[in-house]
C-alpha cells in the first residue's frame, strides 16, 4: 500500500522528551497552528451539533409536509426543505452527529480488533502470527466496498449495530498490520526480554510495556482512520447501503442529489452536507497529519 508521508523537512529542535504519550502529542500539536485551529474548530462544531441534536425533536423533523416541498432557504428554514418538506438544517445537524458517532464507533471497534490481532501476532510470532497474517492478507485482497454492500443487503435484520460490525470486518486489517510490525520491532528490544525474566506474564508484558511504547502510532492511526471512515460511511449511505433510513446521515442528504434536478437546481439540499463532510474530514486530517509528523520527528530523534 502507498504510505502517505506528508512531511516537511523543517528541523525539529531536540525537546526534552517527557515520556507520557498524550503530553508529547499535545506539546507538538500546540506548535502547529493549522492543526490547533482545526482542533478548536472541530470541538466547537461537534459540541454545538450534539447539543442542538439533543434539544431538537427528531419526530417533528421527520414529519412529511407536502405543502412546503423543496423550499429554498428562508427565515423559517435556514437551509430550505427537501422533497418531503422536511427542514434541511435539522437533518444536517442530525446527520452530522449520526455520521460522526457511527464513524467513531467503527474506528474504535476496528482499533480494538486491530490492536488485539496485531499485538498477538507481533508478540508471539510463529504459527499464531502466520495464521493471523494469512487472514489479514485474504481480507485485504477482497473488493471490500462490494463485499460490504452485499453483506448489508443479505443481513436479515439491518440495524446500525449490524452496519458497524459489517464495516469493521473489513476495516481492521490495515491497523492490525501496522501494529504487528511495530510490535515486532518493539519485541526485539531488551526491555521486553527483561520483563519476561522478571516473572511478568505475557499479557502484562504486552499491555504494560509494549502498548505504551506504540501508543503514539495508535493515536495517529486512529485519527486518520476516523476521517477516512466518515468518508466511507457517508459514501455507502449515499449509495443507499449505509445507515438505515431511521438514522439519517450526511450521506442521506447527499443521496438526494442522485436526482439530477436536485443536483442541478436545489443546491441547498446536498451542498451543505457535502461541505460538512469535507470540513470534518479536512480538520480531522490536519490534526492527524500534525500528530504523524510529531510521532515521526520523535522517532528520528530517538
Amino acid at each position: 500500500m502507498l504510505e502517505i508521508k506528508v512531511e516537511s523537512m523543517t528541523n525539529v529542535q531536540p525537546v526534552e522528551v517527557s515520556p507520557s504519550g498524550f503530553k508529547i502529542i499535545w506539546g507538538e500539536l500546540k506548535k502547529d497552528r493549522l492543526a490547533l485551529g482545526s482542533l478548536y474548530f472541530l470541538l466547537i462544531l461537534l459540541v454545538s451539533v450534539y447539543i442542538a441534536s439533543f434539544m431538537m425533536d427528531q419526530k417533528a423533523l421527520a414529519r412529511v409536509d407536502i405543502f412546503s416541498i423543496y423550499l429554498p432557504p428562508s427565515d423559517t428554514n435556514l437551509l430550505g426543505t427537501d422533497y418531503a418538506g422536511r427542514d434541511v438544517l435539522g437533518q444536517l445537524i442530525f446527520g452530522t452527529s449520526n455520521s460522526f458517532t457511527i464513524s467513531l464507533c467503527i474506528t474504535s471497534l476496528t482499533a480494538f480488533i486491530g490492536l488485539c490481532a496485531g499485538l498477538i501476532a507481533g508478540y508471539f510470532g510463529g504459527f499464531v502470527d502466520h495464521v493471523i497474517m494469512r487472514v489479514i492478507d485474504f481480507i485485504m485482497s477482497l473488493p471490500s466496498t462490494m463485499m460490504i454492500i452485499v453483506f448489508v443487503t443479505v443481513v436479515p435484520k439491518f440495524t446500525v449495530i449490524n452496519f458497524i460490525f459489517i464495516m469493521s470486518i473489513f476495516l481492521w486489517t490495515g491497523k492490525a498490520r501496522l501494529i504487528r510490525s511495530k510490535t515486532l520491532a518493539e519485541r526485539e528490544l531488551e526491555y521486553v526480554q527483561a520483563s519476561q525474566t522478571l516473572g511478568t506474564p505475557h499479557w502484562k508484558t504486552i499491555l504494560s510495556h509494549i502498548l505504551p511504547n506504540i501508543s503514539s502510532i495508535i493515536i495517529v492511526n486512529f485519527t486518520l482512520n476516523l476521517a477516512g471512515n466518515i468518508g466511507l460511511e457517508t459514501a455507502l449511505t449515499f449509495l443507499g447501503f449505509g445507515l438505515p433510513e431511521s438514522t439519517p446521515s450526511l450521506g442521506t442528504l447527499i443521496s438526494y442529489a442522485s436526482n439530477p434536478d436536485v443536483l442541478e437546481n436545489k443546491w441547498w439540499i446536498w451542498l451543505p452536507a457535502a461541505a460538512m463532510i469535507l470540513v470534518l474530514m479536512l480538520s480531522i486530517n490536519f490534526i492527524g497529519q500534525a500528530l504523524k509528523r510529531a510521532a515521526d520527528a520523535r522517532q528520528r530523534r530517538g
Partner: protein
Amino acid sequence: MVLLKIEDLKVHFPIRGGFFRTVVDYVRAVDGITFELSEGETYGLVGESGSGKSTTGKAVVKLNDVTSGRILFEGQDLSKLSFGQMKPYRKDIQMIFQDPYSSLNPKKRVVDIIAEPLRNYERLSVGEEKKIIQNYLDKVGLSPDSMYKYPHEFSGGQRQRIGIARALTLKPKLIIADEPVSALDVSVQAQVLNFLQDLQKEFKITYLFIGHDLSVIRHMCDRMGVMYRGRLVEEGTSDEIYENPQHIYTKRLIAAIPDLNPESREKKTHLRKRVENEYKQYRSKYFDDKGRAYDLKLISDTHRVALP
C-alpha cells in the same frame, strides 16, 4: 555445592526456506556444551561474537527454547518447563542485559522499573515497596530522588545500575550477566565491575558472566569456558586458561588482547605472528572434518580441552 549444571545443551534455530517455508537447516547456536557453576563462584563464558554465549545464557532463563540437553538448577531440570512453570525459578535466576539503553522501558519511571519483579511475586503496600526500592537504589549508588525520574535522564553507567537493582530485588541466587559493561565507556566499566563484585560478597550471588573481552573475564571470574561456534573448546581456572592455553583458538584469543605496556608490545606482536602461523598450520588438528570442535578432555583436575 553445584548450583547450576548444564548438560549437553543444544539450542538450534530453524532456518526456513523452499516452497512451503519448511525447515531446511538449523543455526546451531549452541551445539552440545557441558559445564557447571558452584555456589558463590563467578564463571565466565568467552568467545567471539556469534559464538553462542548469549544464547546459552538466555536458554537458562527460558528466553530461548532448548533443543536438547538438561539445565539443572539445584537439581531441578529447567529445560522442560513451560514459560508459566518457570515462574517460581525466576526469583532465583536473574539476568543483567548488555544494552543499558534498550533494556529499560523508556516510558516507565525508575520506581516502576525496579518494582516490576516485586509486584510479580509479593503483595506489598506502597510504603513497603518504596522502602525496599530506596534501599536498593542506595546499594547501587543512586540518590533516592532518582525514583520518579525516567531512564533517559540517566547516563549509561547509571542505567546499568538501575538494571542491576532491578535484578537484585528478588534476592536471586544466580545472576546471568550478559556483557554488562561492553556498552559502557571504558572509564565507567571498572567501576561497574567492582561494584558487581561487592554485591557478590554482600549477597552471596553466583555469576554466569558472559563477555568477549578476555581481560575483563579474567579480572572477574574464578573459572571460565571458551566458546567457539556453539561449542566449548577449553575450560579451566582463569589462570590456567590465561597462562597455559592449550587449544589453538584460546591461544589466538589471548594473543589478540591488546597490550598497553610499550615494552612488551613488541613481544606481543611476535607472539601474535607465531600463533597465527601455528593456527594456519595445525588448524585441522583441532577440529574434526566438519570444522566442529572435539569433546572436552581432562588434562588436569580443573582444566579441560577439546582435543581429538
